[in-house]
């Protein structure tokens, strides 16, 4: 699915009469790493859910390779057929299954044989440096190791799109930096398109080249992150710039 393209056309989403996203249109270019920024409740996670097919838009369309995959209140293509993997904010590891079984169950929609699935899971766990924890339950390993397991489960399905919904919150700086570097390497190696939702300038600048700023359910800024930071329009980017200047001054 390399080279595929996601597109949102005038997408709106309302929950119980409250508009979370309003007339959002943008295209996700293949291989691009984009950070989605914005204040809490501005619709960042909803945007990821709409792309993944976990939610249907209230208005507008979601297209994949020019084909409509979601339309108002209808999901036309199931999430697992979109080439998308996601690391959730709470990681969503199934707590009663071992690390290996978490990855194996995640592969159950791929149609692989048991043997192939095992080999694929082993490879993903090795890549994320958690192969030694294969028989452990998620509750018995550290937060950083859990993040790696969630990442292994996501990349095991060999997706084109990796959606990261604030998965690093709660990690210490050292673990977070190592994990970010690892994801950046993986994303390049596997030509993954990455969409990251975060509030953290470190995560945004380490992993992403372009940015999309949302406010009140609307896109207020979009483009290459370094360009946007030169003349920021939104408050969040102004704070980002101040942070970066502060870090540089400190160094």
């Amino acid at each position: 699915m390399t080279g595929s393209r996601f597109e949102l056309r005038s997408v709106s989403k309302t929950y119980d009469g409250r508009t979370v996203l309003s007339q959002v249109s943008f295209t996700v270019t293949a291989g691009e790493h984009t950070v989605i920024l914005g204040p809490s409740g501005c619709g960042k996670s909803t945007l990821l859910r709409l792309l993944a097919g976990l939610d249907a838009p209230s208005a507008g369309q979601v297209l994949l390779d020019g084909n409509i995959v979601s339309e108002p209140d209808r999901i036309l293509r199931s999430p697992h057929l979109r080439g998308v993997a996601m690391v959730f904010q709470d990681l969503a590891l199934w707590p009663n299954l071992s690390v290996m079984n978490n990855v194996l169950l995640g592969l159950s929609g791929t149609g692989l044989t048991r043997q192939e699935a095992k080999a694929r899971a082993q490879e993903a766990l090795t890549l994320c440096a958690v192969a030694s924890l294969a028989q452990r339950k998620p509750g018995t390993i550290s937060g950083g190791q859990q993040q790696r397991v969630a990442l292994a489960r996501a990349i095991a399905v060999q997706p084109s799109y990796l959606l990261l919904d604030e998965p690093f919150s709660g990690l210490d700086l050292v673990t977070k930096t190592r994990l970010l570097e690892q994801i950046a390497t993986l994303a390049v190696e596997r030509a993954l398109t990455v969409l990251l939702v975060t509030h953290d300038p470190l995560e945004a600048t380490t992993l992403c080249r372009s940015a999309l700023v949302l406010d009140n359910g609307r896109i207020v800024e979009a483009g290459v992150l370094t360009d946007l930071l030169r003349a920021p329009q939104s408050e969040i980017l102004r704070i980002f710039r101040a942070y970066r200047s502060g870090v540089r001054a400190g160094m």
Partner: protein
Amino acid sequence: MESDLANRFGMISCLALERPGKWRALSVTILLLVAALPAAPLLWRTLMSMDSLTASGGAAVGSAFVSALRNSVVVALLVAVVSLAVGLPTGVLTALYEFQGRRVLLALAALPLLVPSFLWAIGWSSLAARCGPVAAHLLSGFAGCILVFSASAVALVLLVSAAATAALSGSQVDAARLAGGERTVLVQASRHVATPALLAAGLGGVLTLSDPGPGQIFALRTAAAEILTSFAARYDFSLAGQQCAVLTGLVLLIAVPLACFAAPRLASEMMARQSQAMRRVRHRGIAGATVAVLTLLVLTGTVTPIAGLTLPLIVTPAGVAWQRLKSLLQTFADTLLYAVGAGVTAAALSLLLALCVGRHDRLRRVCLGMCLALFCLPPALTALGFVHLATEAPAWADFLLRSRLTVCVALGLRFLPVAAVLGLHAWGSTSASWTLAAALHGVSVWTYLWRVVFPLLLPAEVVAMLLVALLATADVSTVLLLHPPGARSLPLAIFTVMANAPESLVATSCLVYVAVASGLLIALWTMAARGKA
């Protein structure tokens, strides 16, 4: 065709488990109707004859019943007041402070909830008889009933208050402690638990309205005992039905506002929250006072009546007692069957209910409100409903309406609300993102349910099953009205022989029952503690 169907069902996405839909409201309505349905024909018939009932100014149900109803209401009110006054502060103290023997004392204090109240009444009455006529006189009538009913109602309020206090986050308690020390912690915690404790006290009071046991032993005419007498002694089904409908009307009058008030609060407590758990602290003075109060409760509610049950055995040779007991123990198989049958029925229905309610907030509130109201209904209502259905139904339906299966189903439906609360709580503590992750990875809904959801809900369902099994065993009214000939449960056997059988036999049977209930309580406690860990 079959494979087509299988494909179609296999294709259902896990997202269906998280999405709202009309099917949810429909399924929940059907499930709750199933619980209320057996009583419907009886209520309908009584409502149809309501004109004659109102025209006679209540004389149709008997003046004795009206006076008994008055007695029942007085007992219910006093029990609610006592249980609130004692249960709330003890529950708060138990949850906030650490002390030696905490688990044992709490388990012993909770025991009256799981043993039929008439067993404790027998213990008290036996003890009073040995202490002389003054003690027997003091304990007869209202005093005895309030004492015995209060033991279980206090246990209910205590457990609810302790659970509500434990739901406070560690930082909330720390903030109160910083603001004004232990006094502020106690005041704030008591304020926090006041509503659930008040509701539990109300529930405890309402439940006494439907319990015939202590009234019969302490010679106080109560409404529940009158219904049993009308049906089992006078063989007047119509009168029993009318009396039951009147009692139901009274219970609903109290229970419905209670349920409407309690459901939203209970529903919000069902969902998982991420907060630092509160830690119990050691405080010498307060811990000492808590131990003293709990010990007093255990002595009054559990130890003294058990002593009363043990006394007759001291004067009876063991061989004789055993011979007599053997005849009662023949009811063991049926007791077990009813308990397991009720537990399985309630647990299975509660699992379905939890699946249908899902994370739908309004539906959860409605469901909990309905469950609370259903739980308050007199057990005799459903049982008499089954009897009514059986008399109208053709002979081939006997295996459904006049068999051991009927007793299992009736008891399961009676205690479905208890299992439903546990089931909904267990479902609420699962994460929605587990389901979303499964949907994203194309895991079929059946695989997801089988491999992830059911194993995670299993401990809660097993606890629900055991709890319902215990409560169902303690329910005498349902079994008395529905059991097929020769298929009594142990509590029913004790209940029916207690007036005529030798005291030692009754006492031994009661003690056997208390011992079994204690064993199951310990098992439940251990499972719950393991689940928490």
